[in-house]
């Protein structure tokens, strides 16, 4: 009941269709990272598929289906991350940096835009700051004001961190 209420308020409480982790072995070795899409509800929407240049996000038979991914084709390019109207796509590169580090590529549409090299707060699904992160790059794949921030984070938190906050 509690878990239901949590999920019902927008907190992902566990994997389910449309919100699954990439296969672990591939993920741990994939340079540039793999996408995680957290879109567990059947809604009429498919820009993740239409924006994907490699066909990794599979075509939708029914536009209301939850997204399905062919991880062998995903290159971690973040075109879907920047296109998704629900900001539901994230790329996680487990090969980045040291043994305890990972690189997350997160969508960002707030001000101020984080500076490369600066430290930002990394927020979990509740908006709680769970760690600091170093901003490695700031991209704007579609030149449409949605930024994708590449931030180095502790590897153990890649399934918690879902947003950043610029500390003034």
């Amino acid at each position, binding site marked *: 009941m509690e878990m239901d209420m949590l999920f019902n308020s927008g907190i992902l409480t566990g994997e389910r269709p449309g919100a699954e982790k990439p296969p672990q072995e591939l993920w741990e070795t994939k340079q540039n990272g793999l996408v995680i899409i957290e879109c567990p509800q059947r809604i009429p929407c498919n820009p993740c598929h239409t924006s994907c240049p490699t066909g990794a996000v599979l075509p939708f038979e029914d536009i209301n289906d939850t997204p399905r991914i062919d991880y062998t084709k995903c290159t971690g390019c973040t075109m879907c991350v920047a296109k998704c109207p629900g900001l539901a796509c994230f790329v996680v590169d487990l090969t980045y940096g040291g043994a305890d580090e990972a690189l997350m590529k997160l969508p960002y549409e707030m001000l101020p835009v984080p500076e490369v090299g600066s430290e930002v707060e990394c927020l979990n699904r509740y908006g709680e700051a769970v760690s600091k992160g170093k901003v490695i790059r700031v991209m704007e794949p579609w030149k449409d*004001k949605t930024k994708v921030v590449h931030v180095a984070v502790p590897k153990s938190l890649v399934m918690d961190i879902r947003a950043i906050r610029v500390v003034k």
Partner: protein
Amino acid sequence: MDLIKEHPILEFEHGKKVKFFFDGKAMEGFEGEPIAAALHANGVRIYRETPEMKRPRGFFCAIGKCSSCFMVVDGVPNVRTCVTALTEGMRVETQRGKGLVPPLS
């Protein structure tokens, strides 16, 4: 004025800045934008008082449907300030009660 100075998505193009009067006090707003927007930017929230209970009313629907934002503008009452454009020198007054429609000149 309480304007949004920077926005991650939008760029605001305001028109000409003009002077207008609210209850006799000089204020600034943008020509062509709704009177209600100019008032709000100047911190004015109370637009009228209801006839019976004298309750304060202000902005509500912003599409000219609810009658909450009626004010006396250049002597004419019941003006929907949320969809009426601001002009230079406009006299905007708090409407108290039903307002008096001026005779035809």
